[in-house]
């Protein structure tokens, strides 16, 4: 029996718009993943703790507030501190092109903006994220 992919979808920071995150949760469910949805207004510390307690393979962050340059790298840093940097972190939301390089640099594995077809995202995951052995 193959392992199930487990994903946390989280919204760090102060933005309360989670329609996108919910649509993604549904798309991930339909792709056969187990999705832990944590709701809005999360701190990076909460997200890292959840990722570890839930033994996920992937953390999908959504941020529409503009604070991604602090929040996303903070999540990868905290995971690294816990020795959990084998968990892949991807991001989405309103992320201006000029911020991408810094985020990739900080360990964000992929960034998807508004209008990305859902199967582009699940396709990327299927190709790049395996359940951790």
């Amino acid at each position, binding site marked *: *029996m193959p*392992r*199930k992919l*487990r994903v946390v979808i989280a919204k760090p920071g102060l933005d309360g718009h989670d329609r996108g995150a919910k649509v993604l*949760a*549904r798309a*991930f*469910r*339909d*792709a*056969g*993943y*187990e*999705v*832990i*949805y*944590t*709701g809005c207004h*999360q*701190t990076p*510390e*909460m997200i890292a*703790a*959840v990722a*570890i*307690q*839930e*033994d996920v393979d992937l953390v999908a962050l959504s941020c529409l507030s503009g604070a991604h340059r602090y929040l996303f790298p903070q999540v990868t840093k905290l995971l690294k501190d*816990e*020795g*959990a940097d084998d968990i892949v972190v991807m991001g989405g939301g309103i992320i201006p092109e000029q911020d991408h390089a810094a985020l990739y640099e900080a360990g964000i594995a992929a960034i998807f903006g508004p209008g990305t077809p859902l199967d582009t995202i699940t396709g990327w995951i299927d190709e790049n994220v395996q*359940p951790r052995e």
Partner: protein
Amino acid sequence: MADLGERILAGDIRAASRLIRNLEDGMPDTDLVMKEIFLRTGNSHVIGITGAPGAGKSTLTDELIAAFRKKDRSVGVMAVDPSSPFTGGAILGDRIRMMRHAEDKRVFVRSMASRGNMGGLSKAVGESIHVMDVLGQEVIIVETCGVGQQEVDIINHAHTVIVVLVPGMGDEVQALKAGLMEIADIFVINKADRDGAGKLYKEVLSVIEMSAKDRGENGGWTIPVLMVESVLEPHKFAESVAILGEKIEEHYRYLVDNQLIEERMRNKTAAELNEALWASIMQPVLQDLSAEGEFEDMVDLLMKRQIDPYTLAKEVATRYMKRRVLTVEGPSADQSK
């Protein structure tokens, strides 16, 4: 995987969540770790919370975590949600209600998908309880999937079962029915500020009275019915749930004082032995039959009505079970070794 056991005993959450994952995924060799920890289990108070979808189980669980943390007790939570029968995927959303405890090191919340298991739980729940137990969680709350009338597996795993009801789900005959209504050690009538709560309260009370009479019990455990309301008024809600917390502890003391805790454990332990037997007998046999394509061949024979499933099963049994001599009727008996 070998060092997982030691790491868990040392309180490593990452190791514990990994082992739980391995149990869920049915990885081979989990029994090697479980073997290591089993003898040290049996210290936690396991609380089951069950009820219909949307009854408020997660919100109650969240407040119960807070109540137990106030008493400085460490808490483990397993929250089960359903898997899709089509894709196998799942949205595990119970945790949303419990995020305020995310950074509390002495609270370990694990979401689980049912993965097609009937009964309101995931198959991995029983063993995962042991994992949380040796990790040092003094209280373990198991929140079932939203259940109907007969998903009652929680009774095999919990010392104290809380059935959460909400008003407006049917007449008093529903309350009389077998199944869910029989398994409560404590009833919670949630959203009790809604219409019909008083009526539901009376119905549940009369069900309890009847069953107490049936058993002729005096001085035993009287099943409390707690009304919980006003989730929108946090202080009131917390107060009601604190009372629930007291009742839960009272029930645990009752079990201990009356030597009933062993009895509850006994059912659970027997179920575990059953599962282990199934895993080491049925599973390999089924794997064997499937690998050789024999299973499908047998299904073909059955479809053509050339043989019946009972004879086939006995044939397989005689082939695999050396010690037990089975009588197989019909000419096929001689084919088995």
